[in-house]
């Protein structure tokens, strides 16, 4: 095990590593499934959750599926080389687990029509490219509610990564629901232009704390902001992963990405020969977005309120973007009772009314 991890890490810039159960004698050739990771499983966040799901999938199929991983793959031109490498290595199903792999995935898919691709959080599909995404904004509505109740300075912070729709949905959803329970709340957004850079994430958290923010939400992958929140005695939320090691304070709850059911389903589809291109967007209702335990640092009535909201979203009784809602410039976005269509949401590129500052284009 140790040796395997050592190899995995040493091969950081792109050697394909078979983590499969090579020793098992199999009657049929096992299905080879490839994964491209943005970071390393040790980030404790985004990549960690994908890796947990990958392990769950291997375990579920007990030798019928083996996986290959390339980690630390930058978003951009180099990704194409890594994806090609996985396709050439005989992987029949390839998961590319970050938004920035969208065009590289499409390009490689053209060259390997028999290989199936699954791209996370993107919107471009082809006959052999599916997309899968999670409605993180549903989780943001729940933690936004908690944030609005917990802030004493009425300033909540959001560490943004890149102004892509997923992040903009998260900021809007968190703000709308914080504002709903606390009309005086103000949202401070800091864009760090990276998914993973612990030092910069910590600096951003510190900058917020010094500016009076006392509840921090983040879209970045590491737990660095948690460490700063702990030192300053302010609240924060786990992102992507539970980050339970920072409970009960500063981590008062979390949004957890649970990809395992989806990965198992898609591998099963391959084994059954039923795989078809699709675009799915799964939320709290399907269990892909989970809300981590709300700790005792949160008053019981706030916890109950948050859980009630979660249940309403899960059952489909409530959509986090329900009108009346205005855009930042004051023009009408959604009329009373109206909810947005998915393709409108997946291209969301503006703040809702009340958020200060310009959204980077």
């Amino acid at each position, binding site marked *: 095990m140790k040796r395997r991890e*050592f190899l995995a890490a040493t*091969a*950081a810039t792109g050697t394909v590593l078979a983590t499969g159960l090579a020793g098992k004698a199999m009657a049929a050739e096992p299905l080879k499934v490839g994964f491209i990771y943005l970071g390393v499983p040790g980030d*404790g966040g985004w990549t960690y959750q994908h890796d947990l799901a990958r392990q769950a999938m291997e375990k579920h199929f007990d030798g019928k599926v083996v996986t290959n991983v390339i980690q630390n793959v930058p978003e951009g031109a180099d990704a194409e080389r890594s994806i090609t490498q996985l396709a050439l290595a005989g992987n029949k199903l390839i998961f590319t687990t970050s938004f920035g792999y969208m065009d590289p995935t499409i390009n490689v898919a053209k060259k390997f029509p028999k290989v199936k691709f699954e791209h996370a959080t993107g919107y471009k599909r082809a006959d052999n490219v599916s997309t899968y995404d999670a409605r993180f904004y549903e989780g943001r509505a729940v933690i936004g509610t908690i944030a609005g109740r917990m802030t004493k300075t009425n300033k909540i912070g959001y560490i943004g990564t890149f102004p892509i729709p997923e992040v903009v949905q998260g900021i809007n959803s968190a703000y709308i629901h914080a504002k709903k329970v606390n009309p005086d709340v103000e949202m401070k957004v800091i864009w760090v232009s990276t998914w993973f850079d*612990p*030092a910069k994430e910590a*600096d951003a958290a*510190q900058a917020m704390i010094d500016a009076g923010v006392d509840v921090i939400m983040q879209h970045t992958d590491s737990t660095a902001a948690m460490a700063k929140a702990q030192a300053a005695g302010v609240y924060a939320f786990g992102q992507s992963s539970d980050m339970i090691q920072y409970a009960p304070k500063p981590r008062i709850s979390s949004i957890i990405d649970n990809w395992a059911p989806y990965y198992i389903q898609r591998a099963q589809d391959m084994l059954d020969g039923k795989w078809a291109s699709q675009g799915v967007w799964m939320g709290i209702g399907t269990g892909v977005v989970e809300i981590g335990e709300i700790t005792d640092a949160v008053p019981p009535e706030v916890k109950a309120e948050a859980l009630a909201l979660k249940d309403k979203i899960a059952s489909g009784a409530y959509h986090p973007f329900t009108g009346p809602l205005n855009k930042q410039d004051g023009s009408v976005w959604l009329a009373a009772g109206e909810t947005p269509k998915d393709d409108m949401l997946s291209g969301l590129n503006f703040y809702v009314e009340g958020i200060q500052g310009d959204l980077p284009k």
Partner: protein
Amino acid sequence: MSLGGIDLVVLIASLMVASTPIMLAAIGELVAEKAGSLNLGVEGMMIIGAICGFIAAVETGSPVLGFVAAAAGGAVMALLFAFMTQVLLSNQVATGLALTLFGLGLSSLLGQGYNGIKPPPTPKLFGSLGDLPVVGPIVFGHNWVVYLSLILVAGTWAVLKYTRAGLVLRAVGENHDAAHALGYRVRTVRTLALMYGGACAGVGGAYLSLVRVPQWTEGMTAGAGWIALAIVVFASWKPWRVLLGAYIFGGVTVLQLRLQAAGIAIPVQILSTAPYLITILVLVIMSARRGRAAQGAPASLGRVFHASH
């Protein structure tokens, strides 16, 4: 003191914290390069320092021992580089890149089980003096590593400029054949210079994992070592300019985040490129003024030394 919603005192205090890791790594690399070795493995040595320091501090409860272990870890990495390049005469660029990859991999192996642990806090050196207005946070409010980094810059400058050892080191870096002909031990000097560089990079890495973040995360240096390498070049291999370059880089990084927190309407794209642009601009303008001679890349930098006679 506040400007546009940003507290200047807090800003200066936090830019010193943000700049310290790259400054430490850069001042160490400067010495290695002054002796003629180009070690591109700064990133790898930093992250080994980050994890060695973290493990030692957590296991012993002493941040001081943590930093000592970090220096040792970085120096061992550098020794590996020295063995490859000085004894086996391998290509320095390739070996340096390999050292970075090796360091990243080894650190994530060593760091298994250290995720989510809080290291012992590194105390502030002057205690309550740090509570004084203005000068408190800026001058007295730091832990000892910040002062050590400043002392190292001053010490490196003084040793290189005024001592015999510094002269020998520079001679080796400028013309290793001549230095060898005069009887100086080129490989020994370079090995020691590389180890100093490794130790400094290690301490810089530990500053990330023990003070600035503070926690262990795989790959947490996230390119800081490459920034340090660039700063050495743009600083024209001059210690005080390394300090200036690191502080400008760290300062603008911190400032741009604080400008965003203060809600000042400058496009984010400009803000996030600003640290790179401004640091390069300032250092390039400074070195352009005095013509090419002042730029001062050591003449034997990166060249293989083989004592054939």
